[in-house]
């Protein structure tokens, strides 16, 4: 269910794939914001020669290293695991390191902007503190009672399977910053926090499910969700986010988890 990476396929690019490296001219239209320079954000166009099989992150690196060193964005692992480089590419939240240039219609300018709903600090960098605050508020750690076992806490493969989908979250904020409820109401926990609560609520080894459910039962909890499915669509890990939120809702109604 993750964002389809192929937007428009072109015959010219297919030809490029067959042969060796064939560079094409790509325009990156980046929404830049530097409050020390201009009070409002501006779209800046950058032209570069790129192999269409490279990633959008490579294009950003090329701009930063060769054209304008003041361009600011986050990236760490560059392989879709650290969750640093979530951004809006052509109007959809994606990881720049998992999006190939040929898949986002390079014949048009590729628009790149910061994820929405969070305070932009500079260019593509947003203040992630509120996002992680919501994450911390659902207590994303194992809660148990009694003595510590001397070995691993075992569980069956079926018990593990129950929450397998939500263990994949990399906290990139692509889901939360694609949620229209979160855009309007910053107090909402957001999909990412609920996904990570789900990961522990449905863990057979964990005993804090009641507490987490009570936190998410609040005015700004799961009931704010409108099942818009933007989060499921945006998740670069393919987590069925909306389904996880619905499962938490059902657990709240039936008290079975």
């Amino acid at each position, binding site marked *: 269910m993750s964002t389809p990476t192929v937007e428009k396929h072109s015959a010219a690019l297919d030809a490029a794939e067959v042969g060796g490296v064939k560079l094409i001219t790509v325009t990156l239209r980046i929404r830049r914001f530097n409050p*020390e320079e201009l009070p409002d954000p501006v779209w*800046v166009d950058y032209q570069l020669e790129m192999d269409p099989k490279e990633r959008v992150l490579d294009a950003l690196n090329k701009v930063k290293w060769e054209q304008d060193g003041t361009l600011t964005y986050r990236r760490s692992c560059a392989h879709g695991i650290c969750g640093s480089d979530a951004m809006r590419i052509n*109007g959809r939240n994606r990881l720049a390191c998992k999006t190939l240039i040929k898949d986002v219609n390079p014949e048009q300018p590729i628009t790149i902007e910061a994820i929405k*709903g969070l*305070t932009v600090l500079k260019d593509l960098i947003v203040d992630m503190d509120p996002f992680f605050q919501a994450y911390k508020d659902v207590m994303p750690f194992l809660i148990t009672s009694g003595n510590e076992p001397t070995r691993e806490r075992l569980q069956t493969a079926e018990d593990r399977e129950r929450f397998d989908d939500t263990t994949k979250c990399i906290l990139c904020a692509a889901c939360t910053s694609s949620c229209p409820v979160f855009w309007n109401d*910053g*107090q909402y926990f957001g999909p990412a926090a609920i996904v990570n609560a789900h990961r522990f609520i449905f863990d057979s080894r964990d005993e804090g499910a009641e507490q987490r459910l009570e936190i998410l039962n609040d005015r700004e909890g799961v009931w704010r969700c409108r099942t818009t499915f933007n989060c499921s669509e945006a998740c670069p890990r393919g987590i069925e986010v909306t389904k996880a939120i619905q499962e938490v809702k059902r657990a*709240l109604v039936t008290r079975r988890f």
Partner: protein
Amino acid sequence: MAADTNETLVVPSVHAHTGQGLGTGNPADAFVVEPPRARTKKTPRRTRTNFEMLAWLFMRLSGVLLVVLILGHLLIMLVLDGGVSKINFAFVAGRWASPFWQGWDLLMLWLAMLHGSNGMRTVINDYAEKDSTRLWLKTLMGAATVFTVLLGTLVIFTFDPNI
């Protein structure tokens, strides 16, 4: 999730920097989204009630019931027995002589009004930008709901066919 490219200026990369230094000098002039989840004095207190859950459940259950009630209502009023042309004072009087149709209409009135106003409540919560606007809109909507529900209930129970 469409790209809203029209609202801001597009500039070529050679003009990316204004060279103006520190802008207007006033950070308040900068275009900044208010940080979400900020804990301020106005942050709503944590509630310990199930109100949101019950409201959510009510929407699901009343929705299912309303499908039956409203489709049945439309069928009777618009399709069966000559359709809309048969509706007149005598037709309404005849229906409301039966406690079954009184109950049907009463249930439909209450469920539809509460379902609709709860839906409007979430819309207002989403779209009102100021707390005072939100409060006023919700107050007005609540008053309208109470008025309509009470008036309708009064008419159903005090309807006099010999008027």
